[in-house]
């Protein structure tokens, strides 16, 4: 009985990051990479997975050593933990996926200051056990990745006539180039969040 209710809890814990507390559409966390790297769906996916990895690892570490960290220095301690994993991501991407590393550019080191990650460390992992923190990180990370891919796909389809580099309009078809330019990021996200608001308002 007890393990049953625990399971349901974990399911809710996982799902909240994707819909109810979606980091991008609802909580507006980590907006810089959301807008900055989503000119294509692939870049969005790459950034989403990189963030998911850092969030996952830092939630694990924070949850494991939470009782050892003095309350007064907890934020700097969290930042060092996060920055270590970001450095790992940076080095791995540079070595194995140099093209993606080029494309994401400055936004890779800036994962350190993604308020989503610090926010989950502070609000969740430092107060909950390992399993819940793992599930929370997965939910939030996947919710973040979905938002990035959705935005990247919208912008790539409208602006470039392709999806994940698969072209369905010819090279010289006229597309809405605006959407791959900076203003398109704001405008596409604005309309996506209107749709998200509409849908969640209807279902709840």
């Amino acid at each position, binding site marked *: 009985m007890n393990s049953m209710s625990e399971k349901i809890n974990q399911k809710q814990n996982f799902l909240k990051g994707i819909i109810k507390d979606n980091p991008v559409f609802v909580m507006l966390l980590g907006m810089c990479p959301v807008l900055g790297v989503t000119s294509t769906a692939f870049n969005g996916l790459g950034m989403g997975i990189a963030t998911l990895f850092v969030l996952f690892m830092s939630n694990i570490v924070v949850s494991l050593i939470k009782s050892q960290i003095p309350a007064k220095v907890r934020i700097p301690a969290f930042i060092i933990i996060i920055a270590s994993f970001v450095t790992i991501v940076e080095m791995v991407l540079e070595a194995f996926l140099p093209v993606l590393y080029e494309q994401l550019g400055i936004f890779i080191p800036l994962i350190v200051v993604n308020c989503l990650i610090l926010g989950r460390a502070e609000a969740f992992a430092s107060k909950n056990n390992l399993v819940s923190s793992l599930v929370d990180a997965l939910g939030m990370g996947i919710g973040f990745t979905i938002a990035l891919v959705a935005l990247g796909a919208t912008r790539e389809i409208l602006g470039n006539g392709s999806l994940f580099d698969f072209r369905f309009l010819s090279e010289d078809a006229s597309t809405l180039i605006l959407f791959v330019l900076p203003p398109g990021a704001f405008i596409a996200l604005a309309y996506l*969040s209107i749709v998200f608001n509409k849908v969640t308002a209807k279902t709840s």
Partner: protein
Amino acid sequence: MEEYILIIIAAVFVNNIVLSQFLGICPFLGVSNKLSTSVGMSGAVLFVMTIATLVTYLLYQFVLVPIGLEYLRTITFILVIASLVQMVEIILRKVSPALYQALGVFLPLITTNCAVLGVAILALGLEDTSLLKAVVFAIANAGGFALAIIVFSSIREQLELADLPEAMKGVPINLLIAGLLSLAFLGFAALV
């Protein structure tokens, strides 16, 4: 001299840090509901960004590069910025209570302002970068941030009276306005 003017124009108008590089979006959307708070935030960003870039530039060129620890850049910079913000807060409270009153509440928010870390890293990649260039670059970017957030908050203040559809209220309309502003700044693209 000419290249410094180019750096300034490029940073403020052409590659505006908020509207075309997407750095510092959190404070841009978060504290821009009143003109007075945006001015305060801009002041705090100018202050911290300039000092942070100065310190991180020196640290990178004279400590990390000579001992071959460039890969520790991210971790070092964020620590320096976080402790710098604390230090600035303490010093400001002692030295200039008036300035502290004006900027105080914004200072803790700045640690997670990606614009500060972003500019510190970007300054290392400038064409034949030098200390002076890095600092000019930081000041210019802070100016670009101030321009964007002040224009944005003036529009938002007007918008409070507008009658909007329910689903558009809050985030979507702010993003749309930011998009239109960004579109306007795109017009500067051919300038440099």
